[in-house]
């Protein structure tokens, strides 16, 4: 069973909708005992970094998430803010992140002459995949994904970078370290490309 962690950070309905579409049972939950039994975890999230970490802490989810991810090594997929929370911390806030990926979350800053570049980075962008396995296995040609974010992840270890995207500069649009996966984009809103990512995550 897949648990979609509901920590009051935005839209979880659309992830459940897409998993249902590919015939997968998922439970949207913040219940520790259900998360405990889950074979895979999805950490979604839209909103502010500190609020996200605060909510995870207040719901008492940090111990179970750390255990599942780091000791049991169940596959975890962080999406958007969920991927940023995998890092050690963010320029957006004060609180430390989960720290499962060695990196930081930084704000997009563009000079005046790049003012055509709006923040948030919102819309469909292409993704350069470094390792065509795991969640990007058998991906369609020229995949594009839907992004909405003002902050991006900078990895300290190149080996954690799974895919990159260009917006003003290259940034990491997907990460992977062992059983931990992350996408800055929203696969649940990215048509067949996103559906493939979920199929790979579910069947991987």
């Amino acid at each position, binding site marked *: 069973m897949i648990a979609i962690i509901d920590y009051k950070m935005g839209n979880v309905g659309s992830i459940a909708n897409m998993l249902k579409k590919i015939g997968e049972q998922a439970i949207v939950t913040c219940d520790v005992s259900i998360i405990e039994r889950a074979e895979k975890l999805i950490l979604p999230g839209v909103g502010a970094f500190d609020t996200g970490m605060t909510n995870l802490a207040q719901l008492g989810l940090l111990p179970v998430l750390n255990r599942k991810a780091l000791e049991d090594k169940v596959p975890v997929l962080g999406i958007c803010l969920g991927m940023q929370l995998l890092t050690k911390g963010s320029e957006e806030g004060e609180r430390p992140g989960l720290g499962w990926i060695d990196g930081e979350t930084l704000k997009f800053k563009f000079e005046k002459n790049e003012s055509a570049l709006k923040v948030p980075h919102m819309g469909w962008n292409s993704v350069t995949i470094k390792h065509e396995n795991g969640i990007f296995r058998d991906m369609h040609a020229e995949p594009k994904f839907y992004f909405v*974010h003002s902050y991006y992840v900078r990895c300290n270890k190149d080996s954690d970078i799974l895919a990159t995207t260009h917006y003003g500069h290259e940034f990491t649009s997907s990460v992977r370290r062992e059983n931990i996966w992350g996408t800055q984009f929203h696969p649940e809103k990215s048509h067949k490309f996103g559906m493939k990512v979920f199929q790979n995550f579910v069947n991987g």
Partner: protein
Amino acid sequence: MLKARVIPCLLLKNEGLVKTVRFKNPKYVGDPLNAVKIFNEKEVDELIFLDISATTENRKPPVKLISQIATECFMPFCYGGGVSSVEDIAELFKLGVEKVAINTQAVENPSLIKRAADLFGSQSIVVSIDVKKNLFGKYRVFTHGGKKDSKLDPVEFAVQMQEMGAGELLVNSIDRDGTMMGYDLTLTKKVSEAVTVPVIACGGAGDLDDFADAVKKGGASAVSAGSMFVFQGQYRSVLITYPSIKELERELN
């Protein structure tokens, strides 16, 4: 590189799909769920649904229909119409809506935008600005489905909304709505130059060149259209369409 988004803007009235001309004479064009299925197959960038009579009829958003749309919608989905509180917005997000568009309440109760942006994040709060020229040729923001002149200047209002936390602005020209004469590029440009958040041009698109103009000349981050995606030919027969990815790339990149 980031692709300029091309967004069908679909109007709801009595839970059916309609299309207006200059915000008047809504013509029934079909079933919204059927339209979503077609737009899914065509892999459209995003969808906007606006219930055009919710505010004037003092109704809440049609949650059952919205929920059905969200279940079928594997692309970003923005809903607007009759949204007047953070509770309304929270309920919409629970259904699977990504973005909520606020129009009348943004004028009458601007603090709603701030509270909503603080709670849900700016990226999910769209302020939809309906603009019409008054008798003296000055742009004015209208509310209540284009019926009420707020006397506000759209550029000043856009800046205020950005400061309140709006993450995106849907700028709709009432004068061009349904005319397929092209976007009001002056309006698009004025607003997009004044703000840093993405501006979606809406109202008047008749062909692919209009999209390119709104982006290249008007500075819009995204373009939205209604008639172009639901009508075909000079007699405006109903046919749901969307340009191919190749056509869009040729035109917009």
